């Protein structure tokens, strides 16, 4: 295992200490491991919190700050956080206007957030939850755990964070988050596995001429192993199911998000984006905004995911609104 770490057990705590040292103007870390906006709670503002396993940096801690998250709850690597964290986060950010939990659809995340929401409600804090489940690699079904929450989460946090920042109430913010979820679709792939620090070896073995299509963000194998293909072929393999699923059609306006899995350099993401732009143009889909970079990662995995969000003027306005977090910043 080749990592810039001191000890597998210390990674999360030391990274949080590094974040605190680096971004004290934006955030603080409170017990038990909750990243909270420096100026929380803000009276009258709906609190937006999210969380999940660590190993997806900058998500979620890197999105705490003005116009995005009020708090983030990092679990152990790839392990959803415990309810104590979400409860502490909820209490820390509640400014009297209630708190929205943005939850990625993983059994563990859903259950731990649910427990926390029950506890917070018992303490008199109004809590709503929206579950993000945007991964088209997973078939949607009532009888299964449903789709995973992946790249759409980043877009949801930005847009919903902007709405909360401008003073929208809990019902409006919750409905908006659900609207983002209803209009966002993603799919990912991996060229390599990654190594969970405490496990010490790669989660899966993969040949030099193979790739995994339809992976999530936890180093798990994907839906299918295929022969390595060109960037254009891979982009088609990811984007076609996305376009067909919602579906996205002629005249639709989107935010296109090309995401690196952690070990893939930016130059390759631009090669992918080049094809995304061409395919969207072919379908008559207008890319109004884009985001290209490694924002929701699987440790050092090489690979990429693509996310499309169908937007209207209001969502675009909120996307463009000022944001100032360690990982996303504009207009501020």
């Amino acid at each position, binding site marked *: 295992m080749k990592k810039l770490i001191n000890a597998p057990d210390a990674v999360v705590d030391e990274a949080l200490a590094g974040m605190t040292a680096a971004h004290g103007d934006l955030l603080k870390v409170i017990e038990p491991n909750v990243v909270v906006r420096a100026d929380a709670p803000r009276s009258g503002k709906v609190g937006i919190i999210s969380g999940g*396993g660590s190993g997806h940096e900058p998500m979620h801690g890197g999105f705490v700050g003005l116009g995005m998250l009020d708090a983030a709850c990092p*679990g*152990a*690597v*790839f*392990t*959803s*956080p*415990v*309810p*104590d964290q979400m409860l502490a986060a909820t209490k820390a950010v509640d400014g009297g206007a209630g708190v929205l939990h943005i939850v990625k659809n*993983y*059994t*563990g995340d859903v*259950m*731990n957030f*649910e*427990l926390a929401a029950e506890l917070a409600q018992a303490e008199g804090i109004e809590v709503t939850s929206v579950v993000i489940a945007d*991964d088209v*690699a*997973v*078939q949607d079904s009532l*009888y*299964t*755990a449903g789709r*995973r929450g992946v790249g759409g989460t980043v877009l949801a946090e930005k847009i919903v964070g902007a709405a909360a920042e401008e003073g929208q109430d809990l019902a409006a913010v919750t409905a908006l988050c659900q609207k983002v979820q209803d209009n966002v679709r993603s799919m990912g792939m991996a060229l390599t596995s990654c190594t*969970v620090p*405490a*496990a010490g070896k790669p*989660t*899966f073995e993969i040949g030099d001429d193979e790739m995994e299509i339809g992976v*999530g963000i*936890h*180093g*798990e*194998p*994907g*839906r*299918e192993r295929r022969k390595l293909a060109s960037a254009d072929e891979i982009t088609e393999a990811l984007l076609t199911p996305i376009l067909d699923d919602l579906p996205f059609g002629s005249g639709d306006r989107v935010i296109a998000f090309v995401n690196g899995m952690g070990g893939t350099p930016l130059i390759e993401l631009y090669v992918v984006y080049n094809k995304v732009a061409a395919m969207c143009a072919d379908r008559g889909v207008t890319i109004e905004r884009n985001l290209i970079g490694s924002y929701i990662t699987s440790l050092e995995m090489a690979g990429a995911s693509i996310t499309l969000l169908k937007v209207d003027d209001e969502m675009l306005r909120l996307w463009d609104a000022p944001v100032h977090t360690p990982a996303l910043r504009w207009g501020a």
Partner: protein
Amino acid sequence: MGRTGAHPGIALGSLSVWPMTTFDLAALRRFVDTFADRLHERKDELTALDSAIGDADHGINMDRGFTAVRGKVAELDDGTDLGTAAKTIGMTLISTVGGASGPLYGTFFLRLATSLGERSEADAEALGVALRAGLEGVAQRGKAVLDDKTMIDAMSPAIDAYDGAASDGMAAALNAAAEAAATGRDRITPLVARKGRASYLGERSANHQDPGATSTTVMFESLRDAVDG
């Protein structure tokens, strides 16, 4: 305590002799130590199972949780009732494990706690009732049914087997439970998962042993050995 009792007797209203095994705090402590030891020993194995169809953390999660549980249970007063002790386990798991297994195993022990209440000892029947309450908690929390390929597929047959053998005494019932858990664990290996992370793999989840069903089997084996031991 927790072994076959010192004063066996004829159970009222029963033709068979009920061995007077009871489950008490000492037994619970032995269980916790045994389970914690075995999770620690088998951490890599459980994580490897989770690597194949999940996210490579199940062994790490369970080991972290039961290391914490061991410490908390060691701190309990000797006079602590079983409900309080089980609640300590459940709360500790919920607060330290995370993932799917934290709330599921946590709920299991919280329901056990409610069922056991202020008892300082549980007989075979009371333990059976408590275990079933735990199972129901896991089913409610996780919404998994049989054949979804989860810990439910080890836990549910184990508790059925326990009930079936309870009249032979706690030791026999726990033995039956441990064997049924293992059988359940193996029975679902060929199946396609419908709940938990493994479900995201679709067909590729077939022919892999479920990590949670495996740790549940270890739990029932530890329970048997703590009582029988």
